[in-house]
């Protein structure tokens, strides 16, 4: 049996090149991540700098996505290969091969690919990891390339686990081939059997549990804890969708195909044939889509959360006083009086306020943020809403945010002890209107209580109405330049800076996730080329009946595009739902869906599908009808 297996490997090198590539890429990424972070850690240890543990965690998490996608592609390939080899396997069984020998044969084949792919992946990973290290070090320091034994062992183990693990099911299927199948018809890949009732029920239950956890997590009032429910909820729900795949994917393919046929009148019959082919084997269609579905769901979820974060930058930034300009110091020391006086003297500047901060023991609430700020002046920059009187605060009272007040049962008029002195609560302010939670006392009282704080942490100032922001900025920067340590930024500019940082982070993560999508596309190419192989006679028949070579290419192209776009649409829908739940658990984050980006994502998936069809479609179009019809 082993000899038959290895003969199989030799006879069809192409299909193993394709599946092998999938393993090389996914193992290579993991190996590369390990090499890079090991190297960075060695350099960091030498310099006493913090380790790159978070980077390592992030890279390995993203790498796991690629590995899962690779496992799906691999399992699908093996299932198809076993189906196509029915006759060969049946012959082996007739000649006396036991079930165990048949299963072992399939597993040996899988481990051979896993081992070869793993080794090649390690080579690729070491090259990529050290190359990226050189880029990161940028010549400023010596970065050693660390290839540890655990890296090699883990990479090999992962490669083998993915290949052998995903070949178990096909191997079991191979043992079920009856010896009699040798004399029966050639498998043509048509399998109208859909999902079994047990499968549908399991899928529905899993999706329902997952959806329940998701919505419960999203609705959980306590900030941050919702994610504990949302993450496993998303995982269970996704598993349910994968289980339901054979029920969901074919109707989706048919609907897409019908829509496409309606808009492409001249090649309607070709589109119809392609649609029928795409959906002819529900399980295979579902697995092919699943690989891409995983990638698109993760990309969509990530992009949507990132977009929500972007539109919430205002919320994050407004931790600062929401004035046009905020003056701070590089060293973190207080803003010097000289700077404040010089800036206030500028004719372009209007309302301004200083904000001093510290933490102190407040009554029996423990350590609380305390700010010294003139709320009247602050009110001129950003309106303050709440209960009580700002005048009473100015007269020596304290203001407290409503969240803190509520938590501790404080109301206007209650006494509150700050740093040893007792104030009366004069104003309960809406938390959304102030840049921090805690207690606010007048600047005078703050200076007396906390003489160690050497000045305001922030000095915020608005430009006079009617003055152009650029002109105001030039004036304020001219002042700041004369004073050492003082820095000025405008909210508008820092918004742009945060935007840029977010864009950079999104691009890096998307580049890594693109690997998973590319692996899924290779999976589509693989499935399609195996389909062309098993449909050789059918393609010959079509060519005889009048399908031109070009129509054959179009037919396979449409089949691949339908598969990839169906996966993309499903992935976008699921990813957006997951992102909604995740965003709902983070307070102050506004859920925003980047529809144009997601549409682009679906189009990109379609293009990838089309590219994946090029090689198999060309081979199909080149088949001579006479030769194809005579194929066994």
């Amino acid at each position, binding site marked *: 049996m082993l000899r038959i297996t290895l003969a199989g490997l030799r006879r069809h090198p192409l299909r193993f090149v394709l599946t092998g590539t999938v393993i090389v890429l996914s193992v290579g990424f993991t190996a590369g991540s390990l090499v890079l972070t090991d190297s960075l850690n060695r350099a960091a240890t030498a310099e006493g700098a913090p380790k790159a543990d978070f980077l390592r965690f992030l890279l390995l998490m993203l790498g796991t996505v690629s590995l899962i996608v690779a496992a799906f592609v691999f399992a699908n390939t093996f299932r198809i290969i076993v189906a196509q080899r029915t006759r060969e396997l049946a012959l082996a069984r007739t000649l006396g091969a036991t079930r165990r020998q048949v299963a072992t044969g399939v597993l040996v084949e899988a481990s051979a690919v896993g081992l070869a792919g793993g080794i090649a992946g390690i080579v690729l990973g070491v090259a990529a990891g050290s190359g990226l290290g050189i880029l990161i070090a940028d010549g400023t320091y010596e970065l050693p390339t660390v290839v540890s034994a655990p890296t090699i062992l883990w990479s090999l183990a992962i490669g083998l686990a993915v290949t052998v693990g995903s070949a178990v099911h096909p191997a079991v299927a191979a043992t079920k081939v009856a010896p009699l199948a040798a004399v029966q018809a050639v498998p043509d890949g*048509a399998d109208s059997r859909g999902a079994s009732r047990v499968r549908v029920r399991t899928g529905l239950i899993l999706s329902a549990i997952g959806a329940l956890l998701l919505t419960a997590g999203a609705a959980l009032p306590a900030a941050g804890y919702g994610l504990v429910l949302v993450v496993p909820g998303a995982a269970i729900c996704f598993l349910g969708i994968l289980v339901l795949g054979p029920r969901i994917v074919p109707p989706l393919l048919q609907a897409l195909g019908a829509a496409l046929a309606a808009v492409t009148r001249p090649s309607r019959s070709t589109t119809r044939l392609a649609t029928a082919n795409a959906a002819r084997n529900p399980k295979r269609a579902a697995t092919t889509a699943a690989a891409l579905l995983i990638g698109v769901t993760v990309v969509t979820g990530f992009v949507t959360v990132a977009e929500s974060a972007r539109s919430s930058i205002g919320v994050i930034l407004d931790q600062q006083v929401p004035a046009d300009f905020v003056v701070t110091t590089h060293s973190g020391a207080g803003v010097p009086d000289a700077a404040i006086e010089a800036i206030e003297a500028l004719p372009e500047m209007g309302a301004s306020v200083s904000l001093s901060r510290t933490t102190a023991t407040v009554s029996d609430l423990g350590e609380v943020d305390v700010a010294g700020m003139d709320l009247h002046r602050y009110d001129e920059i950003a309106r303050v809403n709440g209960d009580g009187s700002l005048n009473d605060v100015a007269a020596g009272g304290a203001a407290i945010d409503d969240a803190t007040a509520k938590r501790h049962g404080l109301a206007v008029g209650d006494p509150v002890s700050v740093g040893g002195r007792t104030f009366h609560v004069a104003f309960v302010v809406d938390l959304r209107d102030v840049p921090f939670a805690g207690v606010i006392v007048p600047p005078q009282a703050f200076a007396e209580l906390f003489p160690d704080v050497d000045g305001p942490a922030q000095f915020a100032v608005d430009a006079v109405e009617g003055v152009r922001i650029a002109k105001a900025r030039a004036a304020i920067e001219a002042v700041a330049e004369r004073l050492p340590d003082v820095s000025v930024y405008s909210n508008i500019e820092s918004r742009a800076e945060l935007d840029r940082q977010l864009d950079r982070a999104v691009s890096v993560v998307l580049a890594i996730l693109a690997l998973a999508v590319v692996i899924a596309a290779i999976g589509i190419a693989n499935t399609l080329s195996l389909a062309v192989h098993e449909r050789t006679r059918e393609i010959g028949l079509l060519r005889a*009946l009048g399908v031109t070579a070009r129509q054959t290419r179009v037919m396979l192209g449409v089949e691949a595009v339908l598969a990839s776009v169906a996966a993309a649409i499903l992935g976008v829908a699921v990813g957006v739902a997951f992102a909604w739940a995740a965003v709902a658990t983070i307070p102050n984050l506004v859920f925003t869906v980047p529809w144009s980006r997601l549409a682009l994502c679906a189009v990109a998936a379609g293009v990838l599908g089309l590219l994946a069809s090029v090689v198999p479609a060309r081979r199909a179009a080149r088949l001579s009808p*006479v030769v194809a019809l005579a194929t066994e």
Partner: protein
Amino acid sequence: MTTQSHALHSPASTGSAAARAVGLVKVYGEGRTAVRALDGIDVEFAAGQFTAIMGPSGSGKSTLMHCLAGLDTPTSGRVLLGDTDLTGLSDTALTLVRRRRIGFVFQSFNLLPTLDARANIELPLQLAGQSADPVWFDHVVEVLGLGDRLTHRPSELSGGQQQRVAVARALVSRPDVVFADEPTGNLDSRSGAELLSFLRASVRELGQTVVMVTHDPSAAAYAGRVVLLADGRLAGQITEPTADSVLAGLRGLGA
């Protein structure tokens, strides 16, 4: 087969040749391993006739049919379909000729498993962006007894029914010639006889031209004329054949 279908006369049958081979040579391979499958064949197939091509294995009968039907290109010589010279046509042009002017019935694997019987029958017309003439479609389907099978997939049809669907597909586009390649090879004798009767009726009653490749003398006896092939050459012909006369003719080839 009690139909009055002479009014629904199908292709232009002018009495001239529907298909013709002139000095046809087909060589497979090169050099010392070259095989001359067709070695200079001149033959005509009259319109409105049922002709069987016979010969022992390796006589070149399938290759001849493939060249006549535009499925394969000859090494030299000419193939004419009506007045159209097929030799020298591009792959696409040949494909369009097959789609519009030729009908096929193969031995097995005639139908697309993903399409139901109706869609299989209409496929060549659909490819050409046309739809079937409903009167003609219903007539063909009725004659072949497929009326209640149109929504069935091939896997739900018996072997005989599958072959009848293939015949319906070949007839419904009213092609210049129907080529049948061992159409009864996979059928039991009763279904085979039924299918051959249909083919003969399509010639007699619908005016169709049919060229059939077979190695079965009793199948050939349904034809109006038998062309005998041996070693890639024409080895004689029999008009108004019977199973016995065909068998005798084959023996004469030394087979």
